């Protein structure tokens, strides 16, 4: 059993059972260098890294892996500090009982918040080893120089970490008296061996050989299979259930019907499918679900007319009656995460405690962005103490912001407690669509004005969108009204203009939509930047200017990093001339993410009037997210974001029918396929002196607008609504 072996392994190495040489406590000094309020347990960074008796390094991965490979970047930093190779680090994903709570893996925060504490921990460990080496060699510390996985004395003698560790693994101890060690990873003068290198992501070999990695892969003695009926939206209540014929299904074992829950347990996965097909449920809905209702709720023009936009982000010398050169409305439809892995969980109750004699009464194997929240949820749900529950987080087959909640896990817990055997719940693709906490639809009214010299003077961006971080489905009902008095940080993301203007108003309203909402890759930044960068492109064209040069000329002076990105992408794109002939075009867009990531994108499209098809041929992307810990992985994330940009611009739209979610699989919610994928060229702009920021969702903010601007360039038609279909394109002349 994978997990149990892993635990045995940890016990064997002395990680979780005594034998620890030095118990670690982080002092105030280290705290001061990692001021991250949402990561309250940063003290523990040092316990994540140990030198084993054989001299190897074992590292707990503090991030939940779902493809962004943040742990690889952290391992590179640890390796840099310890003078070892990243691939020599053994990386382990901890369970909730192995380490104190870690912050949710979300919002591209991983590297930003974790890199420095981990660098300090690893560097302290290195210095501790150096002291050991000095005393063994009877030299002063200054005479012990760095060497691969150990030290070299000035007299030429070598010692390796393995020579310096006895039976027990070594952790480091830092307290308020400890001095801050030199941090190699952050030393801009230093020639680095790990940081900045295209190190291969951890676990790649396991992936290409088909090793068990995801929740549904966990082998489990005597496991049964189950599933529950998913509601179309979370606040739906079961009105009626018809279960006739379920008990006759071969392999059927148990029907579980309790408050707003209907599920089955069966002997095999196929019998679960057969049993579930017999169950018919009708729902009480609190809100009508259909597309018209969504369109009505986000109608920004209606709200503007009523003066009903309740939040104002900027209001500086606003002139509502300026002479608007651009006055356009942009719309974005609801989108689903559609991660490749439909969620799955295994749950097991253990009256006796598990094989290792630890006392967890409830064990859950699942892929989640927030295992500790999962544990709290499970405690609330079952009435067990949190200490009696353990979550074993597994790799996720894509997260993109969608996997923070106790759902498939809850199904598994209900079913296992009803049958008294371990139960695996594997959601179907339709379940996954029904359960998605989608990106909300949004509508943006963008008005821009310029003076006679072409200088941007007025900016008015009004928008309506569904809630994001404060979505109904994400918070307890009693907390919602209070929480919503404040800004929804997902809804406001990406709306701060990068351009200089005298008169400025940005206002919004966020509303409940009849579909479930939540955090989707880049939150509101991509929809807002689609509107903003399209409008700026249009303004430039109206002024007879080149859009790229115009944007650069109007950019706020302090945004040199953004400017460099845009210039880079302009130059990269220049190398491929746009083909002559009808239907070819090129567009650009740029943007700032979370105030510290900068990106620009170009897109080349071909709009084929005969085949009635829009194809994105080539994209260039230049990005600056600070220190480039792993340039190749940054490129991989940029490529990934280009794929999502094509999907967002041309394909993705959750189909909502009458009181139902109709998108149920990849045939009716198309995502980008190989043939849709443009060639992509990326450039990473390294800032060795700026702490690294995560790049998982950055480039998506500029991609869709670049594609829209390319379509404008190719056809003269300004795309106003995503996804753009060929049928939308109104050819002006004919």
């Amino acid at each position, binding site marked *: 059993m994978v997990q149990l072996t892993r635990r045995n392994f940890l016990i064997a190495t002395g990680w979780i059972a005594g034998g620890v040489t030095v118990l670690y406590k982080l002092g105030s000094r280290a705290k001061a260098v990692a001021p991250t309020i949402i990561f309250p347990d940063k003290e523990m960074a040092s316990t994540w890294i140990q030198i084993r008796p054989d001299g190897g390094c074992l590292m707990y991965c503090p991030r939940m892996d779902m493809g962004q490979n943040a742990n690889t970047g952290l391992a590179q930093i640890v390796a840099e500090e310890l003078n070892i190779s990243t691939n020599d680090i053994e990386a382990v994903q901890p369970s909730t009982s192995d380490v104190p709570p870690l912050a949710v893996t979300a919002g591209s925060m991983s590297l930003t918040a974790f890199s420095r504490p981990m660098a300090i921990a690893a560097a302290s460990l290195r210095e501790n080893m150096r002291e050991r080496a000095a005393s063994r060699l009877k030299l002063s510390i200054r005479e012990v120089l760095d060497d691969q996985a150990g030290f070299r004395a000035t007299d030429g003698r070598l010692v390796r970490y393995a020579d310096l560790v006895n039976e027990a693994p070594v952790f480091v101890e830092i307290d308020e008296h400890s001095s801050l060690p030199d941090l190699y990873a952050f030393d801009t003068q230093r020639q680095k061996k790990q940081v900045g290198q295209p190190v*291969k992501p951890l676990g790649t070999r396991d*992936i290409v050989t088909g090793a068990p990695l995801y929740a549904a892969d966990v082998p489990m003695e005597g496991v049964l299979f189950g599933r529950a009926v998913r509601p179309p939206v979370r606040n739906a209540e079961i009105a009626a259930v018809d279960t006739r014929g379920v008990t006759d299904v071969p392999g059927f074992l148990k029907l579980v019907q309790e408050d707003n829950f209907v599920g089955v347990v069966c002997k095999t996965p196929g019998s679960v499918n057969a049993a579930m097909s017999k169950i018919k449920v009708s729902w009480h809905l609190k809100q009508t679900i259909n597309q018209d209702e969504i369109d009505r709720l986000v109608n920004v023009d209606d709200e503007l007319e009523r003066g009903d936009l309740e939040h104002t982000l900027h209001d500086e010398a606003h002139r509502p009656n300026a002479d608007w050169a651009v006055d356009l409305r942009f719309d974005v439809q609801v989108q689903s995460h559609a991660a490749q892995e439909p969620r799955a969980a295994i749950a097991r109750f253990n009256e006796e405690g598990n094989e290792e004699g630890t006392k967890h009464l409830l064990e859950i194997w699942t892929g989640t962005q927030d295992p500790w929240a999962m544990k709290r949820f499970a405690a609330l749900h079952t009435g067990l103490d949190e200490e009696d529950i353990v979550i074993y987080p597994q790799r996720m*087959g894509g997260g993109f912001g969608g996997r923070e909640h106790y759902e498939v896990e809850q199904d598994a817990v209900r079913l296992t407690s009803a049958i008294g055997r371990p139960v695996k719940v594997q959601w179907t693709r339709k379940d996954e669509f029904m359960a998605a906490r989608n990106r909300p639809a949004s509508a943006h009214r963008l008005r821009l004005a310029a003076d006679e010299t072409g200088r941007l003077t007025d900016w008015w961006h009004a928008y309506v969108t569904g809630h994001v971080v404060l979505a109904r489905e994400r918070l307890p009902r009693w907390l919602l009204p209070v929480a919503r008095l404040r800004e929804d940080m997902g809804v406001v993301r990406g709306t701060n203009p990068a351009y200089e203007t005298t008169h400025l108003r940005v206002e919004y309203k966020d509303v409940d939509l009849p579909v479930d909402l939540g955090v989707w890759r880049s939150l509101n930044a991509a929809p807002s930047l689609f509107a903003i960068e399209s409008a700026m492109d249009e303004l430039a064209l109206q002024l007879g200017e080149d859009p790229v040069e115009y944007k650069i000329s109007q950019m706020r002076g302090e945004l040199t990093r953004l400017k460099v990105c845009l210039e880079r992408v302009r130059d990269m794109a220049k190398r491929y001339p746009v083909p002559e002939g009808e239907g070819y075009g090129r567009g650009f867009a740029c943007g700032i993410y979370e105030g510290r990531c900068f990106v620009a994108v170009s897109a080349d499209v071909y709009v084929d009037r005969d085949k009635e098809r829009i194809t994105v041929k080539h994209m260039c992307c230049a990005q600056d997210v600070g220190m480039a810990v792993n340039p190749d992985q940054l490129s991989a994330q940029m490529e990934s974001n280009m794929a999502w940009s094509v999907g967002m611009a041309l394909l993705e739209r959750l189909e909502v029918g009458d009181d139902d979610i109709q998108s149920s699989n990849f045939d009716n919610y198309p995502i980008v396929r190989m043939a849709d994928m443009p060639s992509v060229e990326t450039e990473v702009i390294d800032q060795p002196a700026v702490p690294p920021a995560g790049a998982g969702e950055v480039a998506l903010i500029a991609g869709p607008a670049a594609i829209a601007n390319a379509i404008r360039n190719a056809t003269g038609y300004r795309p106003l609504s995503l996804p753009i279909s060929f049928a939308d394109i109104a050819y002006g002349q004919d």
Partner: protein
Amino acid sequence: MKLKVNGVEYEIDPDWHDENLLDVLRDYLGLTGTRFSCGIGNCGACMVQIDGLSINSCLASLSMAAGKEILTIEGMAADDGTLHPLQQAWIDEAVPQCGYCQSGQLMRALSLLKENADPDDADIDQAMNGNLCRCGSYPRIRRSIKKAAIVLREAR
């Protein structure tokens, strides 16, 4: 009923005879490298080879697979652990992101290179179009297939 997977013959319990090949591989035999994603033959995550042809195992019945040679991702490397050139190229080009689709991608790429020793972009796009990758690793898949193709041609 017997199933031969990666050269090993397994007896399948009658309780599992009506299951599809994917569920038998994963939940009966514990060969979990083949993955479930859409269940309707649309995504390729569950792809295996049956007698050398790549097949979406979520749509394959056990009876149609019985008696044939089934190859899964777990059987792609040589017995001594040496990776297939495609697997090696996948590592060298750092193709996987979340990794979930990659067993299926590799299975499809394997049969592509059997059919066509020197595929160009259009051949690759066509062959691989049934294998979804939500993470968008497509540019690297293209590169890796070409790289592995060279290695395989040179080895001939």
